[in-house]
């Protein structure tokens, strides 16, 4: 009899023991995916066409300066660089008004100045000749250390270069908003003395510009830190 009682007592003990240590639980899982895309937005907030019309002697002599001719805004989620170059080595002549003078106007007669200071060795922190396509050394849209940078420079941050930080133009107006001043100063005769490339560079010995209608395409390129 005592064995039976002992047997049931042992069962009771284990029953109590199991009840004390069994903490029930349940769990559910959520799998969350976050896709942070790389975004680079370059916006030109001004008219893309900038006109310089030289119709007086004074304008020829003193030149024409267009302050804030172009305004650029950068919104980026990546570290970025901004560089500029001309899409050709020279201006394209649409129409000639004269039979004398040199129709070859190098891209460098156009001077640019940026409102944002760049630490790049080649820059447009003050009025500087815009480098033509060849002189800019930009090849297939890829710059080099000799390219004019408005922000950042050639080389990644980890590689010793520099770049501007991600952010929006609205939140970072001093670094993500660019005001580009442009200047053309032909002089009389129209030799464009400030140009780093002479008009005679193309083999035409005429040292002054032929009167006419010209255009040049300026390229602003925003890229991830290179």
């Amino acid at each position: 009899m005592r064995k039976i009682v002992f047997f049931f007592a042992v069962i009771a003990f284990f029953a109590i023991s199991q009840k004390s240590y069994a903490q029930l639980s349940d769990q559910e899982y959520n799998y969350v995916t976050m896709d942070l895309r790389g975004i680079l937005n370059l916006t030109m907030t001004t008219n893309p066409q900038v006109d310089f019309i030289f119709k007086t002697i004074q304008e020829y002599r003193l030149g024409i300066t267009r302050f804030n001719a172009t305004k650029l805004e950068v919104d980026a989620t990546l570290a970025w660089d901004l560089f500029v170059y001309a899409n050709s080595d020279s201006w394209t002549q649409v129409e000639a008004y004269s039979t004398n003078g040199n129709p070859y106007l190098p891209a460098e007669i156009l001077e640019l100045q940026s409102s944002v200071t760049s630490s790049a060795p080649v820059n447009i922190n003050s009025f500087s000749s815009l480098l033509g396509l060849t002189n800019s050394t930009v090849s297939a849209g890829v710059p080099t250390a000799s390219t004019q940078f408005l922000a950042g420079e050639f080389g990644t941050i980890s590689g010793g270069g520099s770049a501007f930080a991600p952010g929006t133009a609205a939140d970072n107006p001093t670094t993500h908003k660019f005001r580009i001043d442009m200047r053309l100063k032909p002089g009389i005769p129209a030799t464009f003395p400030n140009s780093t490339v002479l008009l005679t560079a193309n083999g035409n010995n005429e040292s002054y510009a032929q009167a006419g209608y010209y255009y040049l395409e300026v390229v602003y390129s925003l890229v991830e830190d290179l």
Partner: protein
Amino acid sequence: MKAIGISGKIALLTVFLNISIFAEAQSVSFGITSLSSNISFDFNTINKYKSGIILYNAFELLIDVSGTQWDLYVGATTTNSGYFDVTSSYSSTGTTPPISILQLQFRNANNTSLMSGFFPITDISSPTYIIGTSSAPDLSISCPNVGTNVAGSYTSNPGCYKFNVDMKITPGFTYKAGLYTLRIDYILVQDL
């Protein structure tokens, strides 16, 4: 067997009662039901980076507890504790985002969650309690009070036992572009 005395009968009764109680404990049921398990945040515009993305009712917790008090807590599980798991990177600059940029909000009709509003998620090793605390037993709180932890079911009382989970991420511009993942663990446990 006829020879079983008073002490034997008491012992048998004790065993019976214990088995009965044990059987009742085993009937305690827990249940969390989700409507969906994969949540995706796709940051493909500057505005989304800046303003963030909020997914309302991203997840639904349906709780069914009988016979006991309960706790509910939540946390994130990642390989590198405290940071998102990196599936792929699109850039060489920036840092891996911490899990704390993911914020959760638990809502129900009676606002019984102990965490009001959005709160940043923490690692599962130091979870955030939605109901109850890490110590036990907690004071018994009945529906519809904040922190309701008594037995109940979403079927009969969704105002206290059904939670809609909202999620929000506002990454800003500090983190490395890439595809990231993490797992959120919702744990319902008996308050012992």
